[in-house]
Structure formats: structure tokens, C-alpha cells
């Protein structure tokens, strides 16, 4: 350990030094001449046509002494016209008053967020994020006014997580809209938002959001540190971040949760989790994630508790079916024929008589064919989608059976598996089940149920060894935390879920005492208040 870790440490130190040097490098100062400033911007942006430079005259000098620079499309042109350009043009300061820069800063710019910029780096950062830059001749500094805006997708119902009951808004590609959607739900100053820019080229806005006091500081710190150590050129989607900060790289299971639904993020923040919001994508990451979370839907919390519990049991069952069903079929038909009732065995045997392949090959053919169909169905334009399903149903369902290539029983198994897979609420887990399924099929084909159970043990050990930001993946089932079991496979009514998840939240109690609904006590068959109503009717 010693030598190896020492060299690692040295490397780390060197890296740190490098970073420090980069940070210390003074960025070029802004020249004082307006012409130089404008030329410099033009040169840097390569005369890009969407970088608009509007020269204006404010003072009494003959030539233009100010310029407004903004990038068309990502800035709010109405705000720029009304509150910047018009305001500058209409303002005629009396001669010999204070310097133009100060007037601009204090009197003219009618926008909320105005900052002073002293170097090029920050200037470009503001400019490229949609802010307007106001340059003043003779000043070595510039003003930036927040005019971010431009065309954005409006708030729509999220496509990936549909609910029957529950709010209809979903995240958009704009980080500000997204944070606003969350803030509207948690109107509390303790909802903290930290921003950072990640991606040496893209300079993407990445925010972490958490509720101070509920989220555990260690976990927030861990998230912050992991984000800070990212060195990459671009962040185009939250998936980039996910891959860079997850605990275990080699696993098919997601250790971060992603969602398009603000209500889900709000709910998770209230449980003490941390949200990572990335500009440019509607998918918000939530950390730490636990396995059981992927089997929960927001609707569980809005609907009745008993029904939600039943549905969650169903989902767990579904997950196992989608992993094990084809494997179990293979195991039963090639190893454990004694398991099934004679009549059923005879029926399956009759179907298999004509099939020229061993059970494994048969299963593989069908599974792969189905995966192809599914992939085609997802990537195809909507209009062609129905054609694919017809071809799939006809070719695979009908023709393959009639041609004697596969047995009807196998078609049933594949269909059940496929539907089970679709029914898993979280796509991230469903897709890993798809992959694992093939492993189980091979295990079943070589060792029958012994292979399957070994596979299940490996899977269990693997899941138990996973952690998400230090939290064991299978919490609160293994390790067992009885106080948190109310929101796992079972979902207790709101008044009975008294505690927040212990491993990643601070204030544990979330529901007051005696919150169980207490309707007025009836007298025998007659309810006091209702009785009065009855009398009134007479």
C-alpha cells in the first residue's frame, strides 16, 4: 500500500498545484478604449453574427461612447430594447456631471441584476450566458446586466414519468425555470442553491439544491466535492455528471436517481437528499439513491396507501419476473422437468417436439428478436411505430410459431417478460434488468435452478455491496432500519410515516403526533352532525 499510495498522493499534490496556478493566472485586463474593446470582442468571437454590438452615445462627446453587447437568441431582446437601449438613448445627462459609467450603473440601466466586470474571462462568461455587456469608453471595466432569456420550451407534462393523479408540470431545459419549479413547492429560505460551472468548453451551469438542516452536511459536502473534482470539456446532459460522480462505475444499477418531475425532486429534498440540476436538460439528478426508490412512483404518495403498497409489491414481482422468467423456463424445460405438473409438462413437450433448437437457443432467438423490435420501436418516428408492432406481432408471434421455429410457450414467456419490463417504473432499473436477464439465461442453461440461485446470490451480494454517496444501496432493508420501513415496499399512510430516512437526513421527525384522522365519534348508527342535517331536511 505504502509505495503505491505515496505516488498517488504526490500526483494529487501536483494536480492541486496546477489548478492553483491556473486559478492564479491573471486574465487579461480590459483596455480602456471602446474601439479596442469592441475589436477585441469581435476577434474573440470570430465575428459571429449573433453577437450584437450596438454602439450608443450617452454623453456629449461626438462619437459613440458606450456600446451594448449581447448574444441574440439567448438574451431577452425585449428587455434589452426597453430597459437598456431605450433607457440609454433617452437619458441625456447634464454636462460635467459624474462619469458616464457611474450614471449608467446607478441611473440608467433599468434592470435588476447589474454587475461590474473587470476582466475578459468574466465578461465572456456573462456574455455567453445571455447577459448584456455595457462597455464605456475610457473605462477599464464593464457592466453586465442580466438579460438572460430567449426562446425556451414551455413547461410541459413530463414524458418519461406519467401519472394519473399529481401535478402536470415537468422540468424544462432551462436551469432557472427548473429551480423555480422546485422553489415554488418548497417556500422556505432553508432551500439552498449552490451554483458552479462545469465543463472547460461548455461552461455548463450545474446547481446543487438541498434543504439546509434536513440534508446531512456530510452528504452535501460529498456531492460538492465530487462535482468539484470533475474536469471535463463538456456537460451536455446530467448523464455526464452521473457517470463522473457515481460510487461504483461497473454496475448495471443506477446509483443516482433522475427525474423530470419537480414534485418528485421536492419530495426527495424533503427526505434529505440533494438534487443536482444541470442546465440544458430536464433531467435532475438526485443523490443518494437507494434501490427501493426505483420501484416507487410519485403517485404512490398521492393515492391511497393500501393500493400503493399493493402496487409496490407488484412492481417487485415484476422486476423478478423480468429478470428470471426466461431463465426459469429454460431451467424447467432442460433440467427440472419434474417440477411442473405432468399435464403441463406434456403440453410443453408437445410444443417443443417440433422445435429444432435447444431451449436456450430458442429463448435467445426470441429475446434478441424482441430486443430488436423494442429498439426499433423507440428510435423510429412515431408514424412508423405502429407498422413495427404489426410486423413484430405477425412475424414473431404468428409466423415463427407456425413455422415451428419457436414454441408458443416461449412466445408467452417472452411476452410476459417484455410487459413486465415495461411496467417497471424506473427506466434505469428496467434497462439493467434487460441486461441481467441474459446472464441468468446462460446460467439456467448450464446449471438449471442451481445456476439461477447462484446468480441471485451474486446479484444480492452485488446490490448489498453498492453504495450511493456512502449510503448502502439496499437501505432500509439491508441494513434493516425498522423506523424507515414505512416507505419501502409497503407505503404507510402519511400520518404513520413519522421518520425521515435515517441515513441521509438530519431532522428525523416529519409528522406530528396523533395525526391519524379523528372524525367525530358516532353514536351507534347515527352521527351527531349528520343527524342534525337530517332534521333540517324535514
Amino acid at each position, binding site marked *: 500500500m505504502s509505495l503505491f499510495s505515496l505516488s498517488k498522493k504526490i500526483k494529487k499534490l501536483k494536480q492541486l498545484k496546477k489548478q492553483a496556478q491556473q486559478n492564479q493566472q491573471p486574465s487579461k485586463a480590459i483596455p480602456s478604449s471602446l474601439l479596442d474593446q469592441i475589436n477585441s470582442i469581435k476577434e474573440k468571437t470570430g465575428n459571429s453574427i449573433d453577437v450584437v454590438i450596438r454602439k450608443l452615445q450617452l454623453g456629449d462627446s461626438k462619437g459613440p461612447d458606450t456600446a451594448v453587447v449581447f448574444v441574440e437568441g439567448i438574451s431577452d431582446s425585449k428587455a434589452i430594447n426597453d430597459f437598456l437601449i431605450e433607457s440609454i438613448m433617452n437619458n441625456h445627462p447634464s454636462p460635467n456631471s459624474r462619469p458616464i459609467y457611474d450614471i449608467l450603473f446607478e441611473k440608467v440601466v433599468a434592470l435588476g441584476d447589474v454587475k461590474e466586470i473587470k476582466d475578459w474571462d468574466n465578461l465572456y462568461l456573462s456574455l455567453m450566458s445571455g447577459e448584456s455587456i455595457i462597455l464605456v469608453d475610457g473605462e477599464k471595466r464593464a457592466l453586465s446586466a442580466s438579460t438572460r432569456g430567449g426562446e425556451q420550451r414551455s413547461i410541459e407534462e413530463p414524458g418519461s414519468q406519467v401519472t394519473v393523479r399529481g401535478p402536470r408540470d415537468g422540468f424544462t431545459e432551462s436551469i432557472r425555470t427548473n429551480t423555480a419549479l422546485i422553489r415554488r413547492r418548497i417556500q422556505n429560505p432553508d432551500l439552498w442553491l449552490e451554483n458552479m460551472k462545469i465543463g472547460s468548453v461548455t461552461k455548463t451551469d450545474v446547481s446543487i439544491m438541498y434543504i439546509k438542516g434536513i440534508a446531512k452536511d456530510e452528504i452535501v459536502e460529498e456531492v460538492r466535492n465530487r462535482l468539484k473534482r470533475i474536469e471535463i470539456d463538456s456537460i451536455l446532459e446530467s448523464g455526464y455528471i452521473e457517470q463522473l460522480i457515481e460510487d461504483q462505475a461497473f454496475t448495471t444499477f443506477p446509483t443516482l436517481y433522475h427525474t423530470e418531475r419537480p414534485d418528485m425532486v421536492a419530495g426527495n429534498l424533503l427526505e434529505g437528499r440533494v438534487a443536482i440540476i444541470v442546465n440544458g436538460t430536464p433531467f435532475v439528478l438526485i443523490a443518494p439513491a437507494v434501490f427501493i426508490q426505483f420501484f416507487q412512483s410519485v403517485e404512490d404518495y398521492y393515492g391511497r396507501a393500501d393500493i400503493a403498497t399493493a402496487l409496490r409489491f407488484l412492481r417487485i414481482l415484476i422486476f423478478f419476473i423480468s429478470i428470471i422468467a426466461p431463465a426459469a423456463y429454460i431451467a424447467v424445460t432442460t433440467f427440472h422437468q419434474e*417440477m411442473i405438473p405432468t399435464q403441463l409438462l406434456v403440453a410443453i413437450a408437445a410444443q417443443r417436439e417440433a422445435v429444432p433448437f435447444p431451449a436456450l437457443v430458442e429463448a435467445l432467438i426470441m429475446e434478441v428478436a424482441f430486443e430488436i423490435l423494442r429498439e426499433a420501436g423507440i428510435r423510429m418516428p412515431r408514424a412508423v411505430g405502429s407498422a413495427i408492432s404489426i410486423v413484430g406481432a405477425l412475424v414473431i408471434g404468428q409466423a415463427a410459431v407456425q413455422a415451428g421455429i419457436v414454441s408458443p410457450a416461449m412466445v408467452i414467456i417472452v411476452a410476459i417478460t417484455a410487459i413486465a419490463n415495461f411496467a417497471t417504473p424506473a427506466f434505469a432499473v428496467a434497462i439493467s434488468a434487460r441486461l441481467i436477464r441474459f446472464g441468468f439465461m446462460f446460467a439456467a442453461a448450464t446449471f438449471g435452478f*442451481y445456476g439461477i440461485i*447462484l446468480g441471485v446470490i451474486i446479484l*444480492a451480494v452485488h446490490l*448489498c455491496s453498492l453504495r450511493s454517496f456512502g449510503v448502502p444501496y439496499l437501505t432500509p432493508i439491508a441494513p434493516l432500519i425498522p423506523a424507515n420501513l414505512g416507505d419501502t415496499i409497503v407505503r404507510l399512510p402519511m400520518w404513520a410515516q413519522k421518520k425521515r430516512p435515517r441515513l441521509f437526513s438530519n431532522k428525523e421527525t416529519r409528522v406530528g403526533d396523533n395525526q391519524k384522522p379523528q372524525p367525530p365519534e358516532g353514536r351507534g348508527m347515527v352521527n351527531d352532525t349528520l343527524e342534525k342535517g337530517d332534521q333540517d331536511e324535514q
Partner: protein
Amino acid sequence: MEKANISLYQLFVLILLFELGSAILVPLASDAKQDAWLAILFGMAGGLFLFWVHYRLFLYYPELVPPQYMQKLLGKIAGTLLAFCYIILFMYSAARVLRDFGEMLLTFAYLETPLFIVNALLMLVIIYAVSKGIEVVARTGELFFLFIYFLAITGFILILFSGLIDVNNLKPILERGILPVVRVFYTQTLYFPFGEIIVFSMIFPYIANKKKAKKVGLFAIGLSGINLAITMAINIGVLGVDLTARSQFPLLSTIQGIQVAEFLERLDVFFMISTVICIFFKVSIYFYAAVASTAVIFKIKEPSRLTYPMGMVILFMSVTIASSYAEHLKEGLEFVTRYVHPFFLILIPTLLLGIAFLKNRKKKSPQ
């Protein structure tokens, strides 16, 4: 020692899975005829006492594992030697359990498969689990515990509904007096499975709540004893004394008898699934104890590195210790329980406790 933290519930689960492990497979205490369940309960009482001995020793050295306190109690050389003996015992026991399992699988489901392959597959899974550390094994245990209990209770209900149990098979109680039962107790059930509780002294230092560990441990042993006794009583109730004793795997024969609603029958696969899981934990815990002891004695920083070579040794041992199943059983019953177990599982721990008591008497009594 690794950095790990075991909760009381995890300890409970591990003890239960460990005790049930292979004991539930074999015709345990069948020499006591229809009173086998009684002999098991006696064995359980012995197990409770042994657990108390190990726990007491642990209280004297709450931060140390047995190889360490053996060195403290007996001196460097003698302690190391003794600890080394225990490593071999643990590995041998792991190999025995693995062999039991392999034989079971080969006898009833995988007749044509070589023993080595069946054992190797399970051993690889065990190596994988143990290399992840005791915490992961414990958590996996929690996960499977409920599953096993669910299977067991379902099985029990099905046996009940099939109308297989004939209580008359358990009568007369104590036909030939209590002596045969006592003999089975001190020749068999005391050591297997209850004396094997000694492996848990390797896990004690990881327990977070050390005070309550005793209660939980005793409860777990008690429950496992009751479970085993019930299982054996059901076996005898269903199969009768003669068939139970003649069966290599009585529980399997019992389960094969289930016939409910013309559909729920031929459930051997579920028996296989639950045994694979139980055996997995039993071997894992033995194996972990061996690996952890070795790491402590030879001061190896990363115990997980030992898992692969030691696992291979256990694997080869499991295949070579006997040439036939009969020989394997004979070895276990005649040699190991008669000459090895009384010495290592009972005598030495009690002696160590005595020495620890004498040594610590002058200083302070344990909390």
C-alpha cells in the same frame, strides 16, 4: 481486522442462517429415534452455554479477535499455534459443509455433474461475497433471511395441508429412557451444529451494540434450536423414524411428499434453493473466520486478497477429503465429532476463559 459494523439484527440473522445451514439437511440426531427433537433441544442448551463462554471471553477483550487474545493469554508462540489450528479447523469445516452440499446436489438433481464443478461454482460465489467484507455478507443475510423464512413457513403450511404429519410417529416419547438422548447430545448435537458457534467469536468485535449482543445471540441460538427441533419433528412425523434415519436428506424426502391441490407438488427445487442459500452463509462465515484469522496472524492489511487462494484450498479440500459420501459422513461423525470437536469447540474455549479469568482477576472485572 477490517473496518466494519455489524448490527444486532445482522448478528441474529447470521447466527440463525449459520446454525440452520447444513444441520437442516442431514438426519440430525437420528440415533435418538423419535426423540431426535429432544436431543436437538439439549444440544441447543449446550450451545447457549458455549455462546456464553465465547461472549465472556469477548468481554475480557472487546477489541480483539480470538487469534489476538489467544496470543495474549497463552503467549506469542503457543497462541499463534493454537490460532493456526483454528484456521485449519475453520477451513476444514467449511470444506465439510461444502462437500455436504455438493453431495446433496449430486444425489438428487445433478447426477452427471462432477462434484468439483458444483462445489467450485458455489465457492466462487462465496469468494466473491467474502472478498466484499463481512458487512456485505451480513447485509446479504438480512436480504435472504426473510426469503428463507417465507419459504420455510410456506413449506410448513403445505406439509400441514397435505395431511402428511402423523403425530403418532413421534410417540412413545423417551421409549428407552433419557439415556440414549443424552448420549446423542454429548456425541453429536452439542458439537454439530451448536458447538460451531465458535466462529462468531471472530465477528463479535464488529458488533456495534456490545451489551445487547449476548441477549441477541442467545435468542438466535434458541430460535435456531427450536427451528431445527421442529424440522426434525416434522421429518419424523412425516417419514417415520426408520425412513428419517435411512434418508440421506430427510427434509428433501419430506418436501417431496407435499401434494396440495394437484398443483403444488414436486417442490424439491425450492428445497434446493433454500439449501443453496443456507449453505452459502454457513460456508461464507466459516471461510470469513478463516480468512480474518489468517490476516490477523500474518498481519495482512487487505484480508480480501487472501480470499482467492484460501478459497481454492477449501474447494480442493472439499473434493478430496473423502472418496465417497459414506466415508465423508463416517469421517464427520466418528472422527471429527469424537476427537476434534470436543477438544477445539469446548475444552479450549472453556480453558481460555479460565485463564482469562485468572489473569484479569487482579485487574478489573469485565463490565
